[in-house]
Each structure stands twice: as C-alpha cells, then as structure tokens.
C-alpha cells in the first residue's frame, strides 16, 4: 500500500520548469553585462552555475560580472586565473590592468596594460587606462602618447580628453589643460567631473577669485573658492591662495573644515 501511494505521489508531482541551457544562460548574462543590466546578469550567472556550468566561459562571465559590479579585487583575481590559460587575450589584459589600477597596484596595471596595448587590437579604454597608469608613475611622455592613441581611436569620447587635461594639470600646465577640458565638456556636457575640472582650470588661470553665481548656494560658492585657492597654491600664488581660503571660510554657512585645514597648511609653508 505504501509503495502504491509513493508511486501515485511520484506520478502526480507536477514537473518543474525545464532547466535552461547553461550556454544560453551564460550568453544571456554576458549580454546583460554588456547593456549594463547587472542584476539580471547576476541572477543568470547564478542560474548557470546552478545548472552545472563550468569552464572557461563561466570563469570569464564571473570575472566580467565582478568587473562590471566594480568588485575589482575579485575581478583581478579571476582575470589572473584566466590569463594563465590565455596570456595574450587583450580583453583579459585590459580588464586586469584596469582592475589592478583601481585596487592601487600601479606596477601590475602598467604591466597588463602595456601587454594589452602591444597587440594590434587594443581598445581606446586600454590606451586611456595606460595613460592614467603613466600619470600615476609620473611618466609624462608615455601618458601623452597613450592619451593621443586613445583620442585617435575614439575621437568622440570625452574621457581621454579629460584625463589628458588632468595629466597636464598634474604637471602644472594649467593653460595647456584648459582646451582639453573645454573639448571634454563640449563632448559630454553632462559630465560633472569634466565641468568641475574646467571650472578649476578657469579659476586657476583667472586673476581674481570666483564670484558668486546667480542662485548659487553659500556651500557651493565656498567649495569653488576652496578649489580656486588650491589652484592658486599649486601655481605658487600665495596671496590669492590665502585670500581664496579665507573667503571660503567666510562665505560658508557652516564650519568649513577643509578650507580651514588648507589655510593652516598653506600658512605654515
């Protein structure tokens, strides 16, 4: 009787949904990463793992997912494993280089990115990242060359322009940096970083201190004054730097610790 009941139960169990093909799941997850739907990609990757997927494609998917989710340490570890089997893969090298740079491993980043750009099919992102790595090392020639290649490959992207401008700012060449920032803002007006960099360069190159814009809050104005003070300090204009930090403290509605610290540090020089 028990056996009959068990048999009946087995017969009447409703079958669950058929498991999807692991290959399809991996392909779908890669597509989701490509179009920046990371939640979807994460679930599809988990389903692929659950259906027994493994191997190079699965490892690549997990590495790409970690990279897209900005879990750079995990991504770097996974790309290192992948590079053992495919040491010349430009995608792996590029992503490993960027992940290494994001985790502060500048030497490793330069190594990966140099290898990535040594092959013919390097993307503008690889060249751009190599330029940033060169900036971090102070290798200005390599930085200029890398940004130039990145801009050549992707003339409509604003990031190489912005980074090249910042590279020039790091060298104290504010006037040379200004057109790069202007071009970057022209290409991508929504980029707050490019706009801020342009404001900073303009403030550094102007003779006076930035005035208050119509409708601008005290906090925002104070922040711009503090930035102008830093730029003036970088250019060695001590009087203007002190004036900017002091005015930033005055106009700020609340205690502005950053401007106070800057003023104190610069006064002690």
């Amino acid at each position, binding site marked *: 009787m028990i056996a009959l009941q068990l048999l009946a139960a087995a017969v009447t169990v409703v079958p669950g949904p058929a498991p999807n093909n692991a290959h399809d799941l991996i392909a779908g997850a890669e597509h989701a990463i490509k179009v920046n739907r990371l939640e979807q990609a994460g679930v599809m990757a988990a389903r692929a793992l659950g259906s027994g997927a493994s191997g190079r494609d699965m490892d690549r998917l997990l590495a790409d997912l970690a990279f897209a989710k900005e879990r750079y340490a995990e991504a770097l570890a996974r790309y290192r494993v992948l590079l053992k089997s495919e040491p010349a893969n430009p995608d792996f090298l590029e992503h490993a280089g960027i992940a290494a740079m994001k985790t502060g491993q500048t030497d490793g980043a330069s190594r990966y990115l140099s290898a990535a750009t040594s092959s013919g099919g390097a993307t503008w992102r690889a060249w751009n990242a190599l330029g940033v790595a060169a900036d971090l090392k102070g290798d200005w020639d390599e930085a200029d060359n890398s940004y130039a290649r990145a801009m050549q490959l992707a003339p409509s992207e604003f990031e190489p322009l912005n980074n090249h401008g910042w590279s020039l700012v790091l060298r104290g060449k504010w006037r040379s940096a200004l057109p790069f920032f202007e071009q970057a803002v022209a290409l991508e007006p929504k980029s707050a970083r490019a706009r801020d960099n342009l404001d900073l360069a303009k403030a550094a190159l102007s003779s006076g201190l930035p005035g208050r814009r119509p*409708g*601008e809050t005290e906090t925002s104005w104070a922040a711009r004054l503090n930035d102008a003070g830093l730029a003036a300090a970088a250019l060695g204009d001590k009087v203007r730097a002190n004036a900017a930090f002091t005015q930033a403290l005055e106009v700020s509605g609340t205690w502005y610790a950053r401007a106070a610290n800057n003023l104190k540090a610069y006064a002690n020089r």
Partner: protein
Amino acid sequence: MTTGGKLLLLSGCLAASGCTADQTVQIRPISDPNGKLHYSGGLLAEARGQLAIGAVGLALESFRTLQRQQPDNSDVYAGIAACYAQMGRFDLTRTNYELALAYAPNDPALLQALASTLDSLGETEQAAQVREEVRTAAAKTAQPQLAEAQVTRLGVPRATTMTVKLPDAPPPAKIAAAAEPRIAPAVLSSAEVSFASSSLVSANKPLLVAAEVTLPVAETRTPVVALLAPVSHTAAQPLLLPAAAVDVTAPRLSEVAQRSVSIEAPFIDTGSEVVAKTVVAKAELALRRDVARLPEVTPDRDLNSRGPYLERTSLREVALITVATPKKQSKLESRPTQLPQVAVIDAPPADRPPAAPAPRTLLAASDVRWVPLRYASRTQPIQLLNAARTDHLAARTRVALIDRGWRKVSIGNARAARQHSLVLYSPGRWHVAARLAAQLRCKAVRVASVKNVVVLLGRDAALRRGAISRA
C-alpha cells in the same frame, strides 16, 4: 484528604457547568474589501487584483509570498516591479524588472516596461538601447527563414516559364449538416520550371529556388523556398518543384478570384556557382482548378430539422439558437448606463450662495476593468522634471522629498533648461503646490493644462547641491 477530594470535586463540577453553559460563540467577520479576489485563481491573480484596485502594499506582500514559493517565476518579479512603480520607487522597479528578465530575457513586454522605467529614472540613452533591443528581437522573429535563403539578385532577367500543376479537383462530396460553411483547400501542389537558357543547367548540384507567389486580390506575396536535391536535367526539360516548395495553402488562395497567379522566382542558385547562374523568372500561370467552395449548410435548414439548439461560441459562452439569424445582444448595453446618482457637495465660498449640487455619476460595476499588470497606470500626483541638465537631480530631489514624507513622486526630464525652479499645479492642488514650493524655495504657478503637480527643477536647485558632488 476528604476535604481535598471535595474541593477537587467541587471545582470540577463548576468547571463542567461553565463549559455546558448555553453561550453561543459569535465570530464577526472582518470586512475585507479584497474578499472577492481570494477566489479568482491563485495568489498571483489575487496580487494582481490588489494592485489593480490600488492596494499596493497588500499586492506587494502577496507578490513577496509568491516570490518565496516560486522564485523562478518572472511574473512575480514583474509584479513587484509594478508595485514599486506605483510607489514611485523606480530604482527598485528597475531592479525587479531586471530580475524578471533574468528568467524571461526575451520578453518584449518586460523589456518595454524596463525602458519606461529607465525613462522615469532619466536614463534615456539606456532606455533607447532597450527599445532597440525589442525592435531587433521582433525583427528576428518576424522573418527568420527567408533571410537565410536569400541570394543576391544579379544579372538580367531572362524569360522562362513556370507552370503549376494542381491536383485534380475532388468530386463534390455530400456534406453532412455542419455548423458553418467550409472552403475546400486549394493547394498549389507542384510547379514546373522551364529554363530558357541552358546556362542555368548544372548537373548533379543542389538547386536552391526561392520564389514568391503573388496573389492578385490581396496583393500579397507569399515566399516559397525550396532546396532541391542534386538533379540532372537539361534546358529543354522542365524542372518539377516538389509540393512542399510551392505549397500555398487554402486560406490565401481562397481569396483569389482570378484564375491565375504570378510566381516570381528571382533566386535560382545552382550550388557553388551562385552568381553566374542567378536568374529572375516571372511567369503567369493558370490555376487548373478554381477554389472549390463547398455547399454551405444554412442555419435555417439545420434549425428546421432540429429545432432550437445550444451552440458553444467560445470557451465561456454558449448560445441558444432559436432563430435563423442570430442576434447578439451585449449584456453591458442592456444595462442602465447610470447607477443611482450620488451627489457630491463641495462647500461653497462664503460670498456665494450655495448652488445646486452637481450630480456625479458612478461607474457601473460592469465597467471595472482589470488592467494587465505590466500596463497598469502609473500616474503620480507629483512629477519632478529635471530642467537643469544636471545628472540625477530629479532622482536626488525625490529622495529628499520622500525623506520628508512625500509619496508618489515620479521623475523625468524637462524639455527645456531653466534657471529657476518652478512648481506648476492644476486647480485644486494649490495646497500641495504651496507646501512643495515652500520646501523647494521656489514659486508656484497655477496652470490649467497641468495634471496634478509638476515641479521644474532649475539650475538653482542643482547649485544648492553643487558642493556635495565636489571632492
């Protein structure tokens, strides 16, 4: 011992008498507005019903329960997303639509809903990308087969003949009483293709023929593709296409009034030498048999012979046929269109005498429509539009407003940039607009064409947050 026993006996008697007292336990049912929904087909339908009637919290709870029971069901995540969309939490809406897409990645409705959500979040570029994905998927599913068989059309059209052989018409059979008239299938069973040029003939190579049958009446073209096995033939011999290749079936051909259709065979490919041997052939052909229309059995005859009878017109509906010409009458039309009128009286201003209350008509119960979950209305009382061209300004402002207790706030982008923020409100929403304007430190203007309240966030709102984004 004796005393203890007596006490025990006494307490037992008291307890027994208490239990046997004639008291009826009355349980008053708690009124449940969703009671009718419990029997409408599962928790998913119940949750959708709750969402449709605006009980978003209950719907969300039901969807969450379903999520635990059916974690692989994309409809559940879509339902959760729709709930969050009703709440104005488009960030969570996006997350849940993505989760739904993880289980149904090619669902066009989900992709469209995600695109709308991205629009609400101000991510118009990604929304356009998703819509493009929908279009691409739709195009792929529309013509998957012919694209593979297409060969480049080259060369000068050459004359050739094509004859279609149809099977002989079957003798008209005696048709038993049937409920509706039928049309006999007319099938182009085979076609003979004669080539005028011998350059087409290539022995022992597979032959790909792609043709289109043009129906004169409907001006439609039906693709016909055939890959023939290697054949050996000469120009003088007609090539017989198999029945499967030219099977233009009955429904289309039944519309053909004329006795001829044209077949255009632009692509004839003889194996590897595609380009050199591609021709365009167009020929008129004669249908040997007209569309055979079987004798119709009129309802009169059937009704007279059988009397009134029941007929199932759909899965839900059964019709009693009593007259020869059926007349359908909608239930909704037969009902009174207005329920007893209910007066809604607004307090009149002090300087105006009270006017007669305008009667407001309630909708009939039959007018309640079940809105599909993914297309549920998402109207929000407050709409924040980014008019400063600053990233995520509307989203950040909405977070700030939600922190202050505001609810049902949607976001978007304004068409034009503005310097100063402005609150536009419809008549009757001034109290909301005034509170918003006070909190956003801007003016409020009454505009008749605006629905509810629209806030245009100008650059001044962006500048108030400028310091936060600076490192």
